[in-house]
């Protein structure tokens, strides 16, 4: 595993758990877990804490294929995924027992669940990592990634990211999101200390750790920058901090100006980036010097990557060695790895005279709420299943709101909100639940999403 070898070569790499203060070097974590030497699947429910990281590194250097998922996923979603993919090991400290599994002590500190009956099924040699296409809907659809995908993207990112060998980096973005994963891989290869933390920017402990460890960088989605703004982060210098990174959609003008002023005044760099799970991380970045001039641009493709724009649809297409090996919807799909030449991003784009790219719209049926991708078709299905088969139509409104339309007058709006909150942990402030009498259809009888979207974006502009 080349990625693991690169990390292992960074001999002074140390991981510190901010909660317990425990530190472990990369050498101490090397093959620190007792796991059977099999070619099978492991599910790791991640919370960015040291034991989850140690489990990930142990399985990464082994023959296993890893499905990296969020620890907060609903339990029935977890069980459903486990039934479908029958992992041999499961790391999930939130549960005390799992049917069909026995708890085993893999080390003094780490308990794994091991499957009682080992099922043998083929897994393609390149299929190393499985990431969910949507973090929270519990969909069994995974993106298949190879070790080479991860290595290539880490190398491309390190061409522009000013990582230094004495850097201290907090894991404040979950590594089961591809953006958090790229922060993890690149800094494990080059930086000095990784601080495992589950604190966020609204907690005093986060800022106490920031000072104590001297964070060199912070990263987050636009919403994270809203948080920083609200607590006045950009008003003063933070001497240890050298650079900030971002992904997950455009920042608003107020934030762009605040960050540009902050970077100018205190000599910090800000890297706006564009990426997708299917590209194993980053596809483009905006050089810090261009922030004020081209703040709404996703910038230029990363090294070894290039973009094309489809003549007819304006869809942005990415070509590079970090493009994934297709999706897995069922366990049998693990035996394949189809290296894709091109990635259809589902975003519409344009290119300016200087070669900078701008996202101008979206073809894919997704919305990004708080920087997290939500698949609209899956959400429709989830509501239909939960509420008894009625029709729901979901649309994103300017990446700010999820609009849920229903046609059955007997349905209770409160109930719909409750389901969305329980299943997807969505806050009502980001939801618009709307009753509509008729569903507008296209000439061939499909829901006319563009028409609905247009009217919603006008009403809620």
């Amino acid at each position, binding site marked *: 595993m080349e990625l693991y070898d690169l990390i292992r070569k960074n001999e002074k790499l140390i991981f510190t758990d901010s909660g317990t203060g425990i530190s472990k070097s990369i050498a101490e974590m090397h093959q620190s877990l007792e796991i059977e030497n099999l070619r099978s699947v492991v599910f790791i429910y991640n919370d960015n804490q040291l034991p989850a990281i140690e489990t990930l590194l142990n399985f990464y250097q082994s023959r296993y294929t890893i499905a990296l998922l969020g620890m907060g996923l609903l339990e029935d979603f977890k069980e459903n995924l486990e039934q479908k993919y029958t992992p041999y090991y499961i790391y999930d400290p939130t549960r005390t027992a799992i049917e069909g599994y026995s708890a085993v002590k893999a080390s003094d500190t780490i308990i794994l669940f091991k499957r009682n009956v080992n099922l043998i099924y083929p897994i393609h040699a390149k299929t190393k990592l499985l990431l969910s296409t949507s973090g929270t809907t519990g969909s069994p659809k995974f993106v298949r990634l190879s070790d080479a995908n991860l290595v290539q993207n880490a190398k491309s990112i390190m061409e522009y990211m000013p990582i230094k060998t004495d850097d201290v980096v907090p894991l404040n973005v979950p590594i089961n999101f591809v953006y958090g994963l790229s922060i993890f891989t690149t800094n494990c290869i080059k930086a000095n200390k990784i601080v495992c933390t589950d604190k966020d920017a609204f907690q005093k402990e986060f800022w106490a750790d920031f000072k104590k460890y001297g964070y060199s960088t912070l990263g987050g989605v636009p919403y994270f920058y809203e948080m920083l703004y609200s607590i006045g982060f950009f008003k003063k210098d933070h001497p240890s901090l050298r650079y900030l990174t971002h992904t997950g959609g455009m920042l608003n003008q107020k934030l762009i100006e605040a960050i540009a002023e902050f970077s100018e005044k205190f000599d910090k760099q800000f890297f706006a980036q564009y990426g997708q799970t299917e590209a194993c991380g980053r596809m483009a970045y905006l050089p810090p010097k261009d922030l004020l001039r081209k703040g709404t641009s996703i910038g230029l493709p990363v090294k070894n990557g290039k973009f094309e724009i489809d003549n007819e649809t304006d869809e942005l297409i990415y070509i590079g060695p970090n493009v994934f090996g297709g999706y897995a919807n069922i366990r049998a799909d693990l035996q394949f790895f189809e290296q894709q030449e091109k990635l259809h991003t589902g975003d519409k784009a344009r290119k300016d005279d200087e070669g900078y790219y701008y996202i101008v719209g979206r073809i894919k049926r997704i919305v990004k709420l708080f920087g997290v991708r939500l698949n609209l078709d899956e959400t429709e299905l989830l509501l239909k299943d939960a509420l008894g088969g009625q029709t729901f139509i979901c649309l994103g409104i300017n990446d700010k709101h999820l609009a849920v339309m229903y046609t059955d007058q007997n349905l209770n709006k409160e109930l719909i909100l409750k389901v969305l909150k329980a299943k997807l942990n969505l806050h009502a402030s*980001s939801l618009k639940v709307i009753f509509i009498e008729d569903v507008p259809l296209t000439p061939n009888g499909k829901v006319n999403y563009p028409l609905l979207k247009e009217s919603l974006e006008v009403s809620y502009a």
Partner: protein
Amino acid sequence: MSTIEQLHGVFARAFEIPVEAVNDELEYQAIAEWDSMSHLVLVEELESTYNIAIEMEDILEMGSVAKIKDILKKYGFEIN
């Protein structure tokens, strides 16, 4: 409405929980409903209900219902 009922109403709206579930012991990130998203909503609700502008350093101090009561006192609102 008493001042305490009014305040509990603010929490209930921001976190979308029943008003009976609000008590002094509630802490940030200790319940699923009080996360960073609803914290921003809470700040807005408090600002509009009491017609105040909460100082940035106070936002980091707002770690529990009890602490928020102390902070409101600073802004001239005695909750009891």
